[in-house]
């Protein structure tokens, strides 16, 4: 088994922590993991890309080859479209809908969302709204993990366990919020055609 994920977003959106949540959960299930990150210049509000590779055997390259990602997980709709060349034709795009329009020539949002919808397997998630309903807009990452979770080679209970331990120090309320966000994301992905 191998499962390659392209994580995309804009510098400052927490793409790396999104990647870390999935990576540590996969490792807990005994999978091999390689995670390639970006630091430095592009983190200043630029396009950010991380490669996350999960497998049940050794992983050679830190970078994902073109046409072989099982999933593009995007924190921002325009960025979810930027790396389609990496996506396996049977792969899925799971994208948040809220744009980060920090550039002058950002295309009309409906065109961006329509482009995502036109892909064979696309899941659009109102991550920010769902996170706010769960108790904190900052839990958008966790909504996206939840939305991706039915497709990931990682059990929901492992992700729940991660949330419980990773946020334990911040108190029961933060744990609850993030668990709610995780489940809201999962439920949202389930109802999208």
């Amino acid at each position: 088994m191998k499962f390659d994920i392209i994580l995309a977003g804009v510098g400052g959106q927490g793409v790396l922590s999104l990647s870390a949540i999935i990576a540590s959960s996969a490792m807990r299930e005994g999978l091999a993991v390689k995670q390639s990150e970006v630091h430095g210049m592009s983190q200043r509000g630029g396009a950010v890309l991380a490669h996350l590779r999960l497998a049940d055997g050794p992983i050679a390259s830190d970078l994902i080859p073109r046409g072989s990602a099982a999933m593009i997980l995007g924190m921002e709709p325009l960025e979810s479209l930027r790396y389609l060349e990496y996506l396996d034709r049977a792969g899925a795009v799971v994208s948040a809908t809220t744009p980060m329009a920090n550039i002058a020539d950002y295309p009309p949002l409906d065109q961006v969302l329509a482009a995502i919808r036109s892909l064979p397997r696309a899941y659009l998630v109102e991550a920010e709204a769902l996170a706010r309903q769960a108790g904190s807009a900052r839990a958008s990452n966790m909504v996206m993990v939840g939305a991706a979770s039915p497709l990931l080679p990682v059990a929901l209970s492992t992700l729940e366990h991660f949330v419980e331990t990773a946020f334990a120090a911040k108190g029961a309320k933060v744990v609850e919020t993030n668990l709610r966000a995780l489940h809201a994301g999962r439920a949202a992905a389930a109802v999208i055609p």
Partner: protein
Amino acid sequence: MGERVLLGDEAVALAAVHAGLTAAYGYPGTPSTEILEYLIRHREQHGSPRAQWCANEKTAYEAALGVSFAGRRALVTMKHVGLNVAADPFMNSALVAITGGLVLAVADDPGMHSSQNEQDSRLFADFARVACFEPATHQEAYDMTLEAFDVSERFEIPVMVRLVTRLAHSRGIVRTGDGRGENPSDKRGQAASWILLPANARRRWRALIERQRDIREYTAGSRFNTVEGGPAKRFGVITTGLARNYLLENLADLPERPALLHVGAYPYPAEAIRAFVAPLARVLLLEEGYPYIERALRGIVPPAALEIQGRESGEVPPDGELNPDIVRAALGLPLRQGVTLEGLTLPNRPPQLCAGCPHGDSLHAITSALASIPGAVVTADIGCSTLGALPPYNAVETCVCMGASIGMAKGAADAGVRPVVAVIGDSTFLHSGITPLMDAVKDGTPMTLVILDNKTVAMTGGQPTILSSSELVTLVHGLGVPPGHLHVIEAHPRRASENTETLRRAVGHPGLSVVIAVRECVETVKRGKREKPSAAAGEVRP
């Protein structure tokens, strides 16, 4: 003993601890920064070893060299272009009799993700005639760093560990050992081997040359240089560093497994390479960096019976980093097709200053002050302030290397350009800006220096600067900047018009003027990492 998930950078750091490190020094620079950050966190938790940011790579290297002189183990970290700054001590330290293991961890940035060039540090190791390790995996980053300390002490040379971005900033699993204790402090009293007066230096240089044979013998037998031959093979691939991973990624798709030679320890094993290519009709070189072994193999008189493929002949692009797809194409395999997007062109999203960044206010003041002056030139420097080169500011005309804004402004002024404004961040100024400012002060150069004091090394993630804001003012004053022409302003939107006015006055002055624009980086404010900015504003009248 145990297994951990670490960045490539962190694997180097942990290995240094396990190697009995006494002290580590460095200057932040992507992609090397996380080595020392790991060690600084380690020190906060465990009390040792010493781990410290320095003013620049040269001072860091020299501090590490002093630790080695005292018989103890030292690590010094930097990015590839940082080694240019530390080149003087690096080159000369190859001649002294290293006693405590001295390891230089340098992180190259092929593809220039966050750099001004993609120089390959393996050539620097060759230039200095020292050994170099090039890990391809996280485990090798750990194992090679451990071994580098031993090799340093065994051959009495500094040893380089060369990382590249994709390993430095990738996370993977590392099995670690137990580690050993520090060396005792032991200055061996062979001062002549450390005093590079010409007579000693000639003797030491000869000794280094004579040691080359032993070093080569060692790397020839290294477990990090591997061969998988087969007499019947006609096609072979030579990989270095990360290129091996990209080859392995594609190997199963080749109709026949080629002969394989991998180099991870330098000087490269010339004898083994000769033997490897002897039966081959064709060899492909995959190097993450310059065509270093490739050029040696091609030589001036290329071997007649061997077709050599690589960066110089076009099978591999002449520049940029490798990836699985580039290697796939070089192997002659068809690329896998991904999904294509129809009907929508995606705009680029280049990096930009954070919303509310103080540099934005300073750049705004500079461009407003210069708006009505045709021919004005603004030179810039390395760091977040470089982003002033991009829209919406388009405010600067040069960005070359650390500190160059000031020296280049002086030269441009000497060449007759008026007015000239140099823009540099506080940390970059402390790194390499003090000496060129001294030149300009001495000469009374008609130019304006704007130091953007955001109280941190921002681009690399907010490391502390060497001097505080008030110490910076004292320093600039102490360099002899004329009284009345040193202005300290607060880089804040509410001061926009008075800042523009101050800039206009400074630029109008026919001699040297300095403006220090102070406000903390909004990123570090957010993280609450530093004390609140002082309300220091107004003209300093010493």
